[in-house]
């Protein structure tokens, strides 16, 4: 029987979750999705719980989504944003967070550019830590909301084929999705230019393709990633033009497939680069469902961690 408690105190990454944890979060999220579609969207579950959203990297939708989830659960919310996460520029991460905790904060939702930054914190502080994206490592709530959205559309993920297309090398969404989908028995393919596919990725048990048409033909779900121009420290491909010509997805490509396909994107979309507008806005797309589901999934995560 599935437990009604998570096996972890923090949500650092999908890697650290059990398959039961994933199921529990997704099942709980379904209940919260029902809640946020009521006329009165607020429940008192996290009354008197104070949550700090600490964002050391720019974010619009993730931060908003967490904040909404927190408010719908009646938590008290404070926000901190700073674009400079480097200690060289001032206070250390630990000092910043300890200062926030000194103001009696119970949970920290953190986005940070350093892989492992939430692990670093969780070893050193008592509050629950939720990883809202750590560099190129993991973005667990994104993977959970992606799975939730697929499940909503296609049912159980076991045996489903999901292609993750784009810049896999710099993507925390890809890594978290790989772990999350595999824990539910889905098959995963990664697809992109060979310079943007980590050399040892197939050791994680995923298929690798460099042909986007082949990936689309194979999959039930295409999760298209943003080309992270801001995270490319060196050149990995010649130009956005060439990328969109050879790795971009158009509505015509989707329509030509002789099957149903679900199109996803974690946002923000570079329209005309990885997805044309007509593809992003096509009936195949569940991109806006993902956003809606994000709130429900984050409510589930916050709610379950608060029980720990």
């Amino acid at each position: 029987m599935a437990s009604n408690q998570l096996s972890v105190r923090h949500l650092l990454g999908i890697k650290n979750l059990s398959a039961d944890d994933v199921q529990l979060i997704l099942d709980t999220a379904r209940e919260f999705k029902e809640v946020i579609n009521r006329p009165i969207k607020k429940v008192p579950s996290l009354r008197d719980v104070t949550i700090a959203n600490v964002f050391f990297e720019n974010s619009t939708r993730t931060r908003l989504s967490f904040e909404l989830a927190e408010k719908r659960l009646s938590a008290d919310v404070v926000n901190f944003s700073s674009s400079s996460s480097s200690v060289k520029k001032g206070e250390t991460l630990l000092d910043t967070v300890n200062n926030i905790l000194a103001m009696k904060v119970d949970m920290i939702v953190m986005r940070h550019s350093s892989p492992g930054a939430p692990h670093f914190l969780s070893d050193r502080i008592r509050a629950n830590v939720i990883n809202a994206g750590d560099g190129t490592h993991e973005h667990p709530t994104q993977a959970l909301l992606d799975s939730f959205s697929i499940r909503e559309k296609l049912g159980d993920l076991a045996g489903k084929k999901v292609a993750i297309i784009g810049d896999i090398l710099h993507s925390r969404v890809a890594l978290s999705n790989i772990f999350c989908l595999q824990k539910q028995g889905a098959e995963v393919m990664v697809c992109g230019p060979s310079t943007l596919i980590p050399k040892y990725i197939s050791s994680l048990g995923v298929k690798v393709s460099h042909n986007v048409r082949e990936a689309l033909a194979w999959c039930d779900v295409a999760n298209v990633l943003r080309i992270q121009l801001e995270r490319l420290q060196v050149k990995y491909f010649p130009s956005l033009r060439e990328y969109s010509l050879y790795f971009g997805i158009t509505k015509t490509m989707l329509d030509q497939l002789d099957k149903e396909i679900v199109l996803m994107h974690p946002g923000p979309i570079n329209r005309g680069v990885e997805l044309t507008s007509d593809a992003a806005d096509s009936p195949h797309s569940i991109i806006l469902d993902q956003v809606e589901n994000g709130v429900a999934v984050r409510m589930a995560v916050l709610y379950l961690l608060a029980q720990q």
Partner: protein
Amino acid sequence: MKTLIKAARIIDSQSEHNQTTQDILVENGLIVGIGVGLTATDARVVELPNVCVSPGWVDLRVRAGDPGHEHREDLQTLAAAAAAGGFADVALMPNTQPALDSKDTIGYVRRATQGLAVRVHPLGAVTKKCEGHDFSEMIDLHHAGALAFTDGDRPIENPDVLLKALQYLRQIDGLLMNRPEDPHLARFGQLNEGITSTLLGMKGIPNLAEELMLARDLKLLQYALLATNYQPNAPILHFSTLSTRRSVAMVREAKAAGLPVSCDVAAHQIAFDDTVMLGFDTNYKVNPPFRTPDDVAALWEGLADGTIDAVVSDHHPLDEESKNLEFDLADFGIIGLETAFAVLNTHNSVLTLNQLIDALTHAPRRILRLPAVRIAQNQPARLTLFDPDAAWTFEKTKSKSKNSPFFGIPLKGKVYEIIA
């Protein structure tokens, strides 16, 4: 001043007393007696359980923060840590601030360490500030006491600089040391490139970064020797802290072809593979990074067949502000002086005790062109006393820094003291 060491097992492949248990009498820095049942009046008598004695150990690669970052390690605490680790001689990397690229700074290190039991040998920078561009005055540094030349932590990126340095040092029969790592391939790398780096979402440092520069350096050395009658009687190019199977194979081939090269490995390198990084503990963050179990096995094979000449501590003291950080912001480095022998000894299953000690004493001494030391009558007494079987746990350090993954880990093989 007399010291009488009672019932010590001699571990010295160059000594006729090797593997025998003897009393050793030391007077005024000389071994004046070796035998059974020696007595001496007014001598400090050293009686230690299961004691072994070997020629004093030599570390080819240590760093201090002196001058520049004295709060990490000054020359006195460096020497204290070296003594605690059994090292009687250490070669100091030039990556200080200012760098050891002038007679002034070389002289400073020598003066500041004069009279210490541990000899701290400054290594001169090949290029000014170790930046890889303009040569430092290497002959002058040599005469000021620089034992060999290296840019330390900075690989010599420009092949022409390495070639010219090799050619130039010929005049003094000098030794060039390089840590091979192509900076472009290693750029932004945080740990070994492999499954672990993939799981952690971090850029890896590929084996290729090391192997490419190593292959290049060997070509450059061949070219430097081409059409010359230079036949050095000691290595003239030394590779520091090798980490991959292919690197070991390349040095093995080069030696077989008669190239005057030598190399070393860091003690911690043969203790861990890259899976230790899965917890994001920055105490394991080191360069070269921990590789795969197969690389570790190859490093042991290299030590066993003599391809790898020496074991170094790669001692790198770093303050908490540089280590207690997010992983990618933390500096690379481990303090290793006090644990090098024990780590090597604990993980060893292929070397005889004599081979292991040779890699800590005779080999590095020969590479650095230090006078040979041997346990025999009327020879200088530079000795390390240790027990290879003693179990202990590293808990306190003489270093000013605490960046070590070995705290609290049971180790086998304890150093008693050095006599120097």
